[in-house]
């Protein structure tokens, strides 16, 4: 049997209602990445992670488990799983088998984003444990009642904390705050900018001569919902990299399969495999801009490609350039 849709969506909705996130994370997992960075708590402008990079290791572990269950007789017990999940968070156990190496790498992406924004002279705070998941999996799966309740709770909380501007770091959270919240939250007036837009607005000058090349994989959400396609290219070129385009790129980018990873793991794998072939035709060093593209393409590519998040790539170029100065 395929993975049953209703109980999985039920678990997502229950988790958000009871625990504030589809994939509840401990305080340490959600905020540990910021340790030692001396980020001011709160403020009018805050960096908003939406827990997305922090979820990467747990999502990777969970999707591997679900892929094993797909088409097995165990899928019959998913309804029971939902009942159990109401008492103890099943996804919490998934996070226990998550890879510590992946956790270090995804935390480093967030630290690199902080470094890039600071280098660009941007001032911002961070909400630490006062930051919540924004709700993309609820919204995308049509769980509008649950999403609306959650969005109003998050928006009221941000208002109470005096937040006026969010700097988001991933496509899905960006899309939620810019496109979904204004429909569900009356008078939602918090300004939302993505960090790639913030950095590109500074019109960075080239810091180094071209010393490498990368193949760019655009996120569908950035390119086709949020109009973020030119900014990452501009930033990569300024960092001293030649940008190579796969056959389907920017507004015509091909999905990584990530959005259906939890409900249709085999289909997701087929789609990410197709994308890996397209990327590989252009080169081995690939840059992604979304935590889920990073996980999915990484799983499908195995050792065929070296896949890095754009923030880590940009930060590495800056480090190299300043070491050579």
């Amino acid at each position, binding site marked *: 049997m395929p993975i049953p849709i209703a109980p999985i*969506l039920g678990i997502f909705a229950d988790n958000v209602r009871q625990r504030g996130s589809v994939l509840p994370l401990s305080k340490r997992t959600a905020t540990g990445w910021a340790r030692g960075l001396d980020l001011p708590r709160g403020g009018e402008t805050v960096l908003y992670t939406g827990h997305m990079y922090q979820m990467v290791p747990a999502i990777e572990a969970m999707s591997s488990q679900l892929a094993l269950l797909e088409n097995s007789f165990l899928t019959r017990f998913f309804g029971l799983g939902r009942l159990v999940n109401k008492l103890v968070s099943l996804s919490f156990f998934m996070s226990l088998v998550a890879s510590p190496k992946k956790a270090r790498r995804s935390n480093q992406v967030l630290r690199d984003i902080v470094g890039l924004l600071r280098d660009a002279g941007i001032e911002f705070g961070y909400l630490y444990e006062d930051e919540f998941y924004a709700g993309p999996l609820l919204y995308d799966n*049509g769980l*509008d009642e649950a999403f609306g309740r959650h969005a109003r709770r998050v928006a009221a909380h941000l208002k109470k904390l005096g937040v006026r501007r969010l700097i988001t770091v991933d496509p899905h959270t960006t899309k939620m705050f810019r496109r979904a919240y204004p429909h569900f939250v009356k008078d939602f007036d918090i300004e939302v900018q993505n960090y790639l837009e913030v950095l590109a607005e500074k019109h960075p000058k080239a810091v180094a001569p071209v010393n490498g090349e990368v193949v760019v994989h655009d996120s569908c959400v950035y390119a086709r919902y949020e109009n973020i396609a030119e900014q990452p290219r501009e930033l990569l070129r300024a960092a001293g990299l030649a940008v190579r385009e796969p056959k389907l790129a920017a507004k015509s980018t*091909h999905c990584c399969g990530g959005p*259906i990873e939890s409900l249709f793991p085999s*289909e997701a794998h087929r789609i990410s495999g197709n994308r890996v072939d397209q990327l590989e035709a252009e080169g081995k060093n690939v840059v992604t801009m979304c935590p889920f593209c990073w996980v999915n393409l990484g799983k499908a590519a195995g050792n065929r490609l070296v896949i890095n998040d754009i923030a880590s790539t940009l930060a590495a170029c800056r480090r190299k350039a300043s070491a050579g100065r």
Partner: protein
Amino acid sequence: MIRVSSDLAARLKKEEGFNAGSCFHCGTCTALCPLGYKILPRKLFREAMLGLGDEVRASIPQIFSCLLCRMCEANCPQGVRIAENMRTLRCLITREDFDLT
């Protein structure tokens, strides 16, 4: 158990997210969709607009496997909001069939 909602067409008319009336069945969306489902999204939207609840429900796996990637939509000559239409169908199904609110 799948329940039939006889007023599907009427309900979709009320959903501001659903626009499929201008589709002229050119097939561009099907040709570009990474999933390659033949019924998506044209046949599905027609069934939905005609209120064929059982036919729509038979496509629940396809409705929930849409990536919402907008590859189809970006190239639709008629400006059909295909991804939002899929999301709207999900809203109806999660509410009425899955009882998730």
